[in-house]
């Protein structure tokens, strides 16, 4: 069964540093997303991406955050000037269709720890 692959599974970074979280969505999917889950809290939407541009972003996705699809297969989330409160599990997701009826396929997540 096709999977969304995320690397690394765990990333530790010092506060103020930049991190790049990587995702390989399912190959025929057209819509890509990043979500995060702070420990003990709900899964929160960060950003959606379609046709090489951001479709929608939440308030969490401030100007320290950026996304890119550099080579047609990878989908990356970059966080500059990381803060302690960025520590969370970051999930990448992709979907083939525009309708949410079919749900998204999520990756296993990258646990980001900012120290």
């Amino acid at each position, binding site marked *: 069964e096709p999977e*969304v692959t*995320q690397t690394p599974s765990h990333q530790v970074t010092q506060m103020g540093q930049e991190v790049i979280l990587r995702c390989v969505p399912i190959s025929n999917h057209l*819509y890509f*997303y990043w*979500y995060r889950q702070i420990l003990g*809290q*709900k*899964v*929160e*939407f*960060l*950003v*959606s991406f*379609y046709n090489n541009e951001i*479709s*929608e972003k*939440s308030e969490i996705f401030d100007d320290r955050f950026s996304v890119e699809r550099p080579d047609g297969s990878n989908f990356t989330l970059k966080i500059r000037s990381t803060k302690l409160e960025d520590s969370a599990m970051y*999930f990448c*997701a992709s*979907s083939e*269709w*525009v*309708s*949410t*009826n*079919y*749900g*998204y*396929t*999520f*990756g*296993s*997540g990258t646990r980001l720890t900012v120290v």
Partner: protein
Amino acid sequence: DQQVKQNSPSLSVQEGRISILNCDYTNSMFDYFLWYKKYPAEGPTFLISISSIKDKNEDGRFTVFLNKSAKHLSLHIVPSQPGDSAVYFCAASGNPGGGADGLTFGKGTHLIIQP
């Protein structure tokens, strides 16, 4: 501001019985509702969805009921199996035709199936 609420953090059900997971929402603009299951160290897995034009959708052991007037939906699992033990997230989308918008998740309910 909790637009999607799952008021039971955990639920314990005996194997073979029915599991009923509840979800309430406050935003009347939500038109699609989805349930995801999440095992530890994995990303959420799509289970089943329902459009606001329906009041029931069934897929095998899983049935989702929607009461739009009460802004309430529930997931029924019959019969419950040990492998159903997981955290279940209710999610909603406000875009009738678009998957580009992010999903709003509830905090999740930890379902424990007891032998």
